């Protein structure tokens, strides 16, 4: 069992908190005493932050639509299809017919990579996220 200091994923306050790990599962959370925002305090969402992580309906395998239904497939098959389709449509339209939505839930590093993928690989500036919502 160990505790890991990390950052809350709900609102923009950005509380520092510990996630408690026990036998490969995240079992709870508690505030960081000295973190400048949380200062030993969390809101109800922060205290229950761990609950969605192991929810039984988490997606755990890639899905692909076959005969109208989303069916489990291998990573290789899913990624090949994704690369082929995005690549084909981007190339045919010089990037104009491809759009990407990034996420305010993802890390800075992931947002950086996604806009790099859009601009350098798919040749499009059609990238945005929910800042306006």
């Amino acid at each position, binding site marked *: 069992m160990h505790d890991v200091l990390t950052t809350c994923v709900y609102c923009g306050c950005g509380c520092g908190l510990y996630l408690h790990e026990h036998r490969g599962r995240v079992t709870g959370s508690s505030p960081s005493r000295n973190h400048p925002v949380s200062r030993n305090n969390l809101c109800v969402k922060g205290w229950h932050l761990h609950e969605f992580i192991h929810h039984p309906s988490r997606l755990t395998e890639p899905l692909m639509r076959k005969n109208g239904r989303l069916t489990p497939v291998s990573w290789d098959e899913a990624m090949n299809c994704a690369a082929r389709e995005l690549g084909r449509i981007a190339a045919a339209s010089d990037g104009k017919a491809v759009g990407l939505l990034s996420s305010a839930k993802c890390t800075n590093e*992931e947002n950086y990579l996604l806009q790099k993928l859009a601009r350098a690989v798919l040749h499009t500036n059609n990238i945005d996220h929910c800042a306006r919502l």
Partner: protein
Amino acid sequence: MAGLATTFGSGAMTNSINEIENAQVILLIGSNTSEAHPQVARRIFTAMDRGARLIVIDPRRTLMAKRADIHLPIRPGTDIPLLNAMMRVILDENLADDLFIEMRTENFYGLRDMLFRFDLEETVRLTGVDLARIRAAAQLYGRAQKAVICYCLGITQHVCGTGNVQAIANLAMLTGHVEKEDTGVDPLRGQNNVQGACDMGALPNVFPSYQQVDIDDYREKFERAWHASLPGQPGLTLMQMTHGGKNGPLKAMFIMGENPVLSDPVSDRVEETLDNLEFLLVADIFLTETARRAHVVLPAASFAEKTGTFTNSERRVQMVRRVIPPLGQSRTDSDIIMDLAGRLGYAMDYESPAEIMEEISMLAPIYGGMQHDRLENSWGLQWPCWDRSHPGTPFLHKYYFTRGRGRFTPVVHEPPAELPDDDYPFLLNTGRIYHQYHTGTMSRHSALLSREAGEALLQLHPEDGRRLGVRSGDLLRMRSRRGEVQVKAELTETVRPGEVYTTFHFSEMPVNRLTISAQDHFSQCPEYKICAVHLEKV
């Protein structure tokens, strides 16, 4: 954010969250702080315990409004005339900071001329707030030495959102309430990393660190760094992408960790757009309403399963650390993007998120001194942080504004796109509640949060309830020009007669079928806060 960028030069909180505790006057406008930003509300209450005074501008009697020294119950969508009236009072009563205006700002005369032509009685008629209260609020704010304005989506989600923000910036500059510690203008960001996603250039018009794509110098810099030729035309915004309909501009989309079917206005239009794509790729942790429509769905790792950084509302970049490995076959979004890039013939081989951050720090000047080793051993760093010896910046615009001089931008009232009429007599306002979050992808998978708030409720004034023959818990049919939903009523005096309020957290009651796609011309933020609806008992 466009509003602060044009007036101050930086679209972000000018202060740190903790500085709010030391303010003498706090002006809250368009923010339901105790529900949406609990830690900020806590700072406001601490400040009040120390003697600070609170002014709340909000159409609803929220908890913050009940605690306020002065509550201005404004008619929705009339923030600009109210703020202009406050500024006029400040001018009339000689409360403006002349030295600050002279030394640090430009276009003051543009603002002054507009304010002197301004009719205070007209404001009372538009806003529904009496002049004595406006005057009291202006005096309180104008006389304070340390005053903070906090605003949120109640300001930006209007057709005049950018104008609203500019009016707030004008008020702060007129009284010199920027540039100092414990004093400033603080937009509260709604998502854990919305600031970071903007900083990283997940926007159609800018590279990381707000370097415009259509300026050749910036584009060439990134072309050299990334070894690729880059498009120089700004791209499509979110609404242009998700509301194209059958003949929209896009044929393929990659949606990473968002749920536009629930979060965007006029859901029917979003569904039509997504269903007509040739290819839709979604990466998410749950099978969201959006993922259900995809051709390929990739299982992503949650924040507990990856390492990286988030940037909070006060520009603090801090570490997110891996607690457990990705569940099942899921992968982190960085692994997914790198794999995809590789298959598309572009090598993205980063050993670790730390290496990605190294590259960011070289290309994004405001993140210049931010590397994981520095962030690991601190409570994070606040941008701008120019190099490895820079300590970060707790408050912005000290000595000079990011754009040089702060620019006064006179703005006038712009009426909402759709107001109640005989057919649709109620004004619908939407927002969040304490126990749930956004489209509920995370919070509705939490047992306790769903127990506390498991369904959508429509706040309705008891007077309206009596007229419609509705009691708390009764089912209502709510209809707008765009769609219809059924929702349970909650009679409360939080809202005023003629106005109703509900949340967009619940897929069973997709309120964005009703909302309007009218949007601000500059920021293209949709007007979630005002549309007209009709109510009847089921």
